């Protein structure tokens, strides 16, 4: 049963890293898409949303083509830094990040679109620089929406299976996350292990939901 705890720790590590990356990318891209009009914006929006609707195995295949040692990114990393991404826990992070990205991006974009541009204009007339306008006005006003997107993306990353299996494989103690471990245990007929893993996964999900309830307070955001 010790393997279950290793898988749990790895799963939490992968999901946390993926969520942290999505905080950066999802919020940045969501803000850009909410504020700037440019040709091809709708197409870009569709492309960025694609990971949400595409089968994870297809996504995993795309990633394999890109970051595999013969793919453009993978070959470059190998040549310049000697890094092989495939079948590492970092590859699992990349897979989870890509799969969960649209959840943060969509939530952030919607949240920023509800922020009155006039409030940002008011901040500018008060002598505040552009970065400060973002951190003092736009982000705090959009934060609740972003946070709910982040929690969803964390939950999605916890349960990631298809793309992760394609790029990170199923190496026990190294890249075997909870959901993959469950699959392997069932395939191998280890019912005890499977039961235990399923129980651990369920409890983890309940804990995440409880934490989510604490993090996103129920009170209504102050409005003018």
């Amino acid at each position, binding site marked *: 049963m010790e393997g279950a705890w290793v898988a749990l720790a790895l799963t939490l590590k992968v999901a946390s890293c993926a969520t942290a990356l999505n905080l950066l990318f999802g919020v940045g891209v969501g803000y850009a898409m909410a504020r700037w009009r440019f040709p091809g914006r709708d197409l870009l929006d569709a492309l960025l949303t694609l990971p949400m609707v595409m089968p994870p195995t297809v996504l995993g295949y795309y990633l394999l083509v890109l970051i595999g040692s013969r793919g453009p990114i993978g070959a470059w990393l190998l040549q310049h830094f000697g890094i092989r991404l495939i079948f590492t826990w970092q590859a699992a992070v990349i897979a989870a990040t890509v799969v969960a990205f649209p959840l943060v991006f969509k939530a952030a974009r919607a949240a920023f679109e509800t922020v*009155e541009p006039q409030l940002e204009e*008011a*901040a*500018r007339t008060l002598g*505040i620089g552009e*970065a400060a306008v973002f951190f003092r*006005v736009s982000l705090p006003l959009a934060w609740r929406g972003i946070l709910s997107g982040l929690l969803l993306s964390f939950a999605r990353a916890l349960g990631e299976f298809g793309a992760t299996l394609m790029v990170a494989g199923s190496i026990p103690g190294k890249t075997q996350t909870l959901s993959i471990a469950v699959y392997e245990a069932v395939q191998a007929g280890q019912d005890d292990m499977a039961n235990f893993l399923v129980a651990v996964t369920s409890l983890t999900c309940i804990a995440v939901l409880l934490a989510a309830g604490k993090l996103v307070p129920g009170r209504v955001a102050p409005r003018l």
Partner: protein
Amino acid sequence: MDWNVALTKHLRHEDAHFELEVAFSSHAPRLALFGPSGAGKTQVIKMLAGISRPDHGHVRIAGHVLFDSAAGVNLPARQRRLGYVFQDYALFPHLTVQQNIGFALQGGWRNPALRGAAPPAVQRWLDAFHLQPVAGLYPHQISGGQRQRVALARALVHEPAALLLDEPFAALDKALRQRLRDELRDLQATLRIPTLLITHDDDDLQALADDVVHMSAGKVAPAPQSSA
């Protein structure tokens, strides 16, 4: 005191086109931009504040060149040192009254602290506008008149070179409007700060302006014989 403004801008909203072409200059410290709604008054004030960019022209206020398309000058809004009171006040809903007023005094990426003593300048405006009792409340928790004073205090706290007021009484009922109009007139007299006021109310002109620019359909209009 000089207002020297000449602006053109082509505005497009969906299929509607609107040509804004406004030029006026005045030595009056208290100037009003007067005209019916839809005349483009708010567009003009936004271009003065640096929120909206004119196609051509210049903006010189109190001897400072804020915009000049021929010379390639276009100061960003944050460097124009103009106090702008928005029509619906645009108070920051996530900040308390005290934080709203202190917003301009706090540099960096963090908002003024939620608790603790406010800087002296903030205290002064809290006292002057009788806002001490609501200093810790949020904009949605205070009255319309208080919101208007918070917006005014927030704009004045960093000692702007001029004050831009966009229909400052539009959101208020009639009785309150009269009282706040008197307050604003007293404020103009004590601070001696140049003000540009947007209004379509004759009473505002009487109390708060020395000179009037009439506007209609995006152009400066000749003063009507009777303001019917």
